[in-house]
C-alpha cells in the first residue's frame, strides 16, 4: 500500500512536470519574463503582449530619426527583445508625411508605428487611422498620451534662442522675447526660420493681440530668414549673424557637438515646447510588437532616443534627457498640446503674415 502511494506520488509529479514542460513549449520557448519597471499595468497583460509581439516578430516603424539615430534606437530595443526585428523607414518633412498619409489612405503601404506631425493630427483622427491604446499602462507622464489615446509623445522640441559666443556673451543677449525688439538687433542681426514654429508654439499663451503685435515688430527688425533651424544654427556658428530667435535644442546640439562656438538659452517669460507623437496604425500588421516598441520608446527608450536625436527626448523635468535636465520646472514651459493642434495651421498662417513673410 505504501509502495503504491509512493508510486502514485511519483506519477503525479511526472504529470505536473510534463504539463509544465508542455505549457512552456506551447509558449514558443519563451520563459515568462518579469514585467520591466517601465510597465505599470498588470504583469499578465505584459506577458501576453510580449508573447504576441514575439510571435509577430517584426515592427515597421516610420519616424523622423535619421538612419544613424534610428540604428541606435533599434539596436537598443533589439538587445532587450532579440526576437522582434525593427524595420525603420524615414518619415521626414511635410512632403513625405503627406505622401505617407496618401499611401496609408489608399492601402498602398503597410506599417505599424508612425510618427505624425502636429499638422496632420486632425486628419489622422478624422480618418481613424490610429488604434486606441491605453498608454498609461506604460510608465509615462500623464500628459504624454493624446486625449483620445491614439498616440503617445515620444519626443519634444524645446524652442529657445542661441548666440555666437565669438560675437556675443551671455550678458549681451536678450533675456526676454521682447528684448529681441531692441533696435540694436535690427538689420540681419537676428537669424530666423521661415517656418514660425516657435511663435506658433507661443501663440495660445500670449493670445492673438500680443502675438501679432510682437511679430509685426519682430518682422520690422528685418531678421535674416532661412528655412530650417539647423541650417540657421550652422549660419550662426559661421558668424553670419550673432543671434538666433527660435533655435531648437536639438538643432543647437547637432552643431555644438562639432565644436561650434555657439550657446543655447531659454528666453523668458515662456518657453514653447512642441511634441513628437507616434501611434500604432489601425491596420498595423504587427500591432502587439508595435505597442510594445512604442511603449518602450516613450519610457525606457527615452534616454537612447534623446542621444540618437541630439536632444529631442521629452524635455520635461524628471526625464533623463538633455531638455529634461535643462528645464527646472514645468511652469517654465508652455506646452502646445492637444487642444491647440487643430488651430496650428491657423496660427502658422497668422504668424507668417504678421512677420511679413507672406506677400
Amino acid at each position, binding site marked *: 500500500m505504501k509502495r503504491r502511494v509512493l508510486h502514485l506520488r511519483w506519477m503525479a509529479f511526472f504529470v505536473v512536470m510534463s504539463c509544465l514542460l508542455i505549457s512552456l513549449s506551447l509558449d514558443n520557448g519563451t520563459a515568462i519574463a518579469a514585467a520591466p519597471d517601465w510597465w505599470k499595468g498588470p504583469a499578465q497583460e505584459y506577458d501576453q503582449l510580449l508573447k504576441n509581439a514575439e510571435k509577430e516578430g517584426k515592427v515597421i516603424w516610420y519616424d523622423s530619426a535619421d538612419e544613424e539615430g534610428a540604428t541606435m534606437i533599434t539596436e537598443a530595443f533589439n538587445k532587450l527583445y532579440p526576437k522582434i526585428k525593427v524595420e525603420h523607414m524615414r518619415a521626414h518633412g511635410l512632403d513625405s508625411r503627406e505622401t505617407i498619409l496618401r499611401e496609408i489612405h489608399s492601402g498602398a503601404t503597410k506599417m505599424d508605428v508612425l510618427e505624425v506631425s502636429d499638422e496632420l493630427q486632425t486628419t489622422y483622427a478624422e480618418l481613424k487611422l490610429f488604434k486606441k491604446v491605453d498608454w498609461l499602462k506604460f510608465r509615462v507622464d500623464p500628459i504624454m498620451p493624446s486625449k483620445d489615446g491614439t498616440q503617445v509623445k515620444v519626443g519634444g522640441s524645446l524652442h529657445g534662442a542661441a548666440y555666437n559666443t565669438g560675437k556675443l556673451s551671455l550678458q549681451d543677449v536678450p533675456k526676454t522675447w521682447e528684448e529681441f525688439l531692441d533696435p540694436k538687433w535690427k538689420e540681419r542681426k537676428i537669424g530666423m526660420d521661415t517656418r514660425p514654429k516657435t511663435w506658433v508654439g507661443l501663440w495660445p499663451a500670449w493670445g492673438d493681440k500680443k502675438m501679432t503685435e510682437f511679430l509685426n515688430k519682430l518682422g520690422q527688425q*528685418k531678421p535674416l530668414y532661412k528655412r530650417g533651424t539647423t541650417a540657421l544654427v550652422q549660419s550662426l556658428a559661421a558668424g553670419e549673424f550673432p543671434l538666433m530667435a527660435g533655435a531648437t535644442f536639438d538643432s543647437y546640439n547637432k552643431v555644438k557637438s562639432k565644436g561650434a562656438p555657439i550657446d543655447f538659452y531659454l528666453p523668458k517669460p515662456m518657453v514653447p515646447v512642441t511634441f513628437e507623437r507616434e501611434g500604432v496604425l489601425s491596420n498595423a500588421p504587427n500591432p502587439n510588437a508595435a505597442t510594445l516598441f512604442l511603449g518602450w520608446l516613450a519610457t525606457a527608450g527615452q534616454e537612447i532616443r534623446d542621444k540618437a536625436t541630439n536632444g529631442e527626448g521629452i524635455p520635461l523635468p524628471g526625464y533623463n534627457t538633455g531638455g529634461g535636465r535643462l528645464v527646472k520646472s514645468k511652469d517654465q514651459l508652455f506646452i502646445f498640446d492637444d487642444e491647440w493642434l487643430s488651430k496650428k495651421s491657423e496660427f502658422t498662417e497668422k504668424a507668417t503674415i504678421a512677420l511679413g513673410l507672406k506677400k
Partner: protein
Amino acid sequence: MFDRNKLRVEWERGAFILTGGIVAFLVLVPVGILVWSSFRTGRPGFPGGTYTLANYVKAYVDPSTYSCLLNSVLYATGDSILSISIAITLAWLLERTNMPFRNLGYALILVPMAIPGMLFSIAWSMLLTPSIGFINIVLRGVLNLFGFNMTEGPFNIYSLPGMVFLGGLRSVPTLLLMIVGAFRMMDPSLEEAALVAGAGRLTSLRRVVIPVLRPAIFVAFIYVFIGALEQFEIPAVIGIPAGIFVFSTKIFFEATAKSPPDFGLTNAYGVAFIIISIGLLYWYAKATARAERFATITGKGYRPRVIDLGSWRYPAFLLLFSYFFLIVVLPVFILLWNSLMPYYQAPSFKALSQISLKNYEFILKVPRVTLAVKNTLTLVALTPFVTMFIAFMVSWVAVRSKVKGRRLLDSVAFLPHTMPSVVIGLALVLVYLNLRFIPIYGTIWIILIGLVTKYIAYGTRTSTSAILQVHKELEEAADVSGASPLKKIMQVTLPLILPAFVNGFIWVAVHSMREVSIALMLFSKKNAVISSILWELWQDGRATETSALGVMLILTLVIITVSGRIIVRRLSRQY
C-alpha cells in the same frame, strides 16, 4: 510613286498616333489633374472635396500675387537676357572660331550642369553673404588697405540683382546646349559672304549669324524664360532672406510649407504658368512656321569651317575661363572647403587645423547610399534614352510630317516645362495610387515616368531646333533613292542631328541625376535616389555632410558630361 506617297502618309499618321498617345499619357494626365484640382477644395484623393472657383478668386484677387508675378518677370527677364548673351558668345567662340583649347572649353562649359541648383545657391550665399561671404571678406581686406573700412559687403547676394546674376550664370549651359548644334551646323558660307562684303567679325555675328539662328535662339530663350519663372532654388535660397518673393516661392509656401497643403490654390497659380506658356508658344509657333527659311544644312556643299580670331584667340579663352571660374571653381571650392570642415566657417588659415574627411566617412556609412547609387544609375541610364527617343519622334512628326495636329503635339510636349515639379510628382502619385494594377508606385519606374515627363520639353526643343536646321531636300533625296521612311530617318536625319541629340541626352542624364522635387514627391521605401538623400541631409541641417555628398555627386556628373563631350566630338567628326 503613288504607293510611295501613300506609304509616307501612313507612316506619318502612324508615328503621329503613337507619339501622340505617349505624349498625351505623359503630359495631359498631369495637366488634367492640375486643372481639375485647381477647381477643388480639400486634399486631392481624399473624401470631402467640392468643386469651387474660390481658389482662382483667392489667387487672383490677392494683390501680392501681382507683386510676386512682377518679381518673377523681372527675375526671368534678367536671367534670360544675361544667359542668352553669354551663351551666344560662348557658342560662337566654341563652334565657329579657332579659340585655343576649344575641346577643353566645351567640357568646362558643361561642368556647371553637374552642380545641383540648391548646392550652387548655397555655395554662392557662402561666397557673397554681406557679413561672412568669402569674396566679401577678401574684398574688404583689400579695401581696408586703401583706407575703406567696411564691416559688411561690398556685395550683397541677397538682392534681385544677386538672384539675376546667379540665375543668368546658371542657365548658360542649358542654353548653350540648345543652340550650339545650330551654330555647328550653320553653313559658314553665309558668314564668309559677310566678311567678304566688308563686315567685321562682330558685325557678321550680329547681322548674319544671330538672325539666321533666330529660331533656335528664340526657342532656347523661351525655354529659359519659362524655366526661370518656375525656378525655385535661387529665389528660395537668395530671394527669401532678402524678402523678395517670386511666383515659385509663393507656390512653395502654399503647396508644401503648410498643412494641409493648399493644392487647389497652388494649381490655380500653376494654371497661370500654363497660360503664359501658351502665349509664348504662340510666338514660338509663328517663329518656326517658316522653318525652311532657316534651314542651314542643305544638300549644297555643307562643310563647317572655323573663323580665325588672330590675336584675340587667348583673350577669348580667358573670357570663357572667367565664366567657368565664376560658375564652377568658386562654388566648388567653397563646397569642398565646407565638406572638410566640422561645421561651416569662412575659409581661413585658422580653420585649416580642423580639416578632416569625417563628412565623407559619414556619407559612405549611410546604408541607403548604396541603394540610392544603384537606383540613380538605373535612372541615369534609362531616362535620357526614353526621353530623347520620344522627343525625337515628336519633333520629327511636328517638323517633317504633314499630319493635322502636328504643331499641337509639339506644343503639348512643351507644357511640362511650365509645370512645377511638385505638381507633376503629385499627379503621378494620384494616378498610380489609384491605378494599382500598374504596380509601379513606390518603385523607380514611377520616378522614371516623372523625369521623362519633366524633360520631354527640353528634349523636343533640342531635337526640333536641330531638325529645323536640316533642309528637307536631304530627306527628299533619300525618298527619291527609294529609302523607306524608317531608313530615311535612321540614315539621313538622325546622323545629321546626332551631335545635338547626344547633347540633349547628356543634359537629360545630368538633370535626372540631380532632380529633387519629383524624386521627393515619389519617394518611398525602395526608390531612394542620390538627390533625395542630398535633400534629406540638407533638411537635417547637415550642411557639411551635404557638401561632401555634393562634391561626390559633382565629380560623378563631371565624368558623365566630359565622357559625353568625348562622344559628341567623335560623332561630329564621323558625320
